């Protein structure tokens, strides 16, 4: 009796071990990828942030906290705040445009849904930079829009090289990333819930506020994250559409690595950016668990 229990237990533990082993085998390609391309570089970035810049740009392996105290300098804080402001503006506007779009697409007949979704994704089939340059062709002083307005006796206007153009570029680039998760969330919504709300006497606005919006909130949060995260760290759009007249954290980080050859400070800036994003991701996780 006793012996049979024991052997049963070992059999169970053996089968558990083989199950773990089996999982490891299947997980290993993904894990290798994560370790080589994420954990190791991240560890390097974290460690560099604590060292000093060499005179010719290398890294001196002497522990220091000066990179982090430098982060608190008003000029860098200003850039971070500016980036937050621009990324938030882009996210809010993308949400205001994206929600109705996703809502309408979700109500379309199946055939048109596919067409609409393909249309949303279509811009991604062209290189990002080409699309940004296209904006320059459209909006520059002697560009297409000004030429057309000129024919009507208007302008010329200065569309390019200001913060408004940066926000426009960000919205344009990342709007699809807002629409898709919103569409997925709205699509999942059971239409009967809305009908029930209407039957109970709620007007459409009330139904939207009390039923539709709360139930699609995870989609809203995901969409906002998808737009905010790449907007916050972007450096190409401020450079090309902002004319380098205002810079964002992404530009600052790029400049530390490519121009100033100050990898330790670049790493510290990268960690600061990561910290902001991690806080946001935690918020997102928290909100989707609640939903």
């Amino acid at each position, binding site marked *: 009796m006793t012996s049979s229990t024991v052997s049963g237990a070992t059999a169970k533990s053996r089968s558990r071990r083989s199950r773990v082993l089996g999982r490891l085998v299947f997980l290993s390609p993904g894990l290798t990828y994560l370790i080589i391309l994420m954990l190791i570089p991240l560890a390097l970035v974290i460690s560099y942030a604590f060292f000093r810049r060499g005179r010719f*740009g290398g890294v001196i392996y002497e522990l220091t906290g000066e990179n982090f105290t430098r982060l608190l300098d008003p000029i860098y804080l200003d850039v971070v705040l500016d980036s937050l402001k621009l990324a938030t503006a882009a996210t809010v506007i993308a949400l205001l445009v994206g929600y109705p779009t996703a809502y309408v697409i979700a109500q379309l007949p199946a055939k048109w849904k596919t067409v609409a979704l393909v249309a949303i994704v279509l811009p991604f089939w062209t290189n990002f*930079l080409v699309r940004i340059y296209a904006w320059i062709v459209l909006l520059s002083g002697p560009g297409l829009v000004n030429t057309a307005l000129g024919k009507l006796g208007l302008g010329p206007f200065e569309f390019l090289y200001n913060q408004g153009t940066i926000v426009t570029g960000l919205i344009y680039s990342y709007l699809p990333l807002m629409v898709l998760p919103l569409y997925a969330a709205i699509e999942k919504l059971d239409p009967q819930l809305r009908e029930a709300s209407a039957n109970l006497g709620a007007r459409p606005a009330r139904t939207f506020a009390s039923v539709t919006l709360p139930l699609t909130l995870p989609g809203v949060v995901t969409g906002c994250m998808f737009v905010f995260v790449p907007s916050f760290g972007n450096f190409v759009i401020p450079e090309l559409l902002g004319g380098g007249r205002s810079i964002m954290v992404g530009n*600052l980080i790029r400049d530390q690595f490519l121009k100033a050859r100050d990898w330790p400070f670049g790493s510290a800036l990268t960690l600061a950016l990561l910290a902001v994003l991690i806080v946001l991701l935690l918020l997102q996780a928290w909100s989707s668990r609640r939903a």
Partner: protein
Amino acid sequence: MSRARYTRRLPAAALVAGLALAVSACGGGSTDSAAAPAASASSAQLDPNMDLSKQSITISVWPGYTPEDLPKRVKDKLKTDLKVTLHDTNEIIMGKLTAGADTGLDVAFVSGQYAQALNEAGLLEPIHPELIPNLANLYPEAKELSYDKGNVFSVPYTWGTTGICYRSDLVKTEPTSWNDILNPPDEAKKKVTMMTTERWLALPAVKALGLSVNTKSDEDLAKVKAKLLEAKPNLLRYDDVDFGKRLTSGEAVMVEAWDGWCPTSEKNIKFVVPKEGSDLWVDTMVVLKSSKNKEAAHAFINFILDPEIHGWAAENILYKVPNKAAMDKLPKDLVEKNVPLQMTPSQLLAGESIIDLGEDSTKFTRLATEVQAAK
């Protein structure tokens, strides 16, 4: 050019940067050696009768800066295999060279102040003039460059200056001073560009204030910053790359420009070095101390200084070369059309050489950040 190539190839530059980071991260290695021995005569003798076909050379150079078929030409002439690797900016090649690991490079093209920094870090082989008879082709002025008097550790490849490139048909009075860029006349407001690379971003204000391009004084730099901030509202944008195109299209009417990049062959586009003076930049060739093919590396530099090869640079990238024989051979109409090519070495040397500022170079980085980040 060295300074600007990278923005023109933004995606490539980003990629290269990523790779460079990955590579040099693996290399590790500190390179801080301010006190390291500079190149001196103490280095080993080179064999002038070396069989060059037994050596091969790897160079690193900016894209488009040497003839496409250079490896074939070198093979035909020197019997040496040549491998060309590319870097988009000085910063990227400096990252590689100072990362500690042997890069396998024999010759690198870098700007003068970077050659100076590499030499101070003890990474350069002194130039052996006896192996480069073509040094005789250089202008005497090319041996008087302040970062390397007498070409001890570097050989100049191209040189030039920075000035104002403008549309003579779109401005009422022709610019003569850096103040015309900093505080433009009404017709040029919002139609002016300045460069974004740190030393050149500061240059107009530095010169307008009568300061040295190599100033490190905090007091001077505060004045420079104030002047640059004053100028910012009238700028169209910061631009290192497309200023020529912006002038042609009329989007800009006056820009800060490197001489060779001002399209003076176009109608109505002119170039002027402001009366307050300007800089002198030099792109150079250096031989690395770690090179195992030093004889071939010297033979390569000698080959480049051949008037025909060196003239290629002037003819194709429109940068002046410090090679008298090559400049004398340039087609007359090319020089007539491209005004900056007419500048003489002594006019160039009136400009102040940009030198490496060591630790203080971060002051210019900070200045550029502060100016660009300001509202």
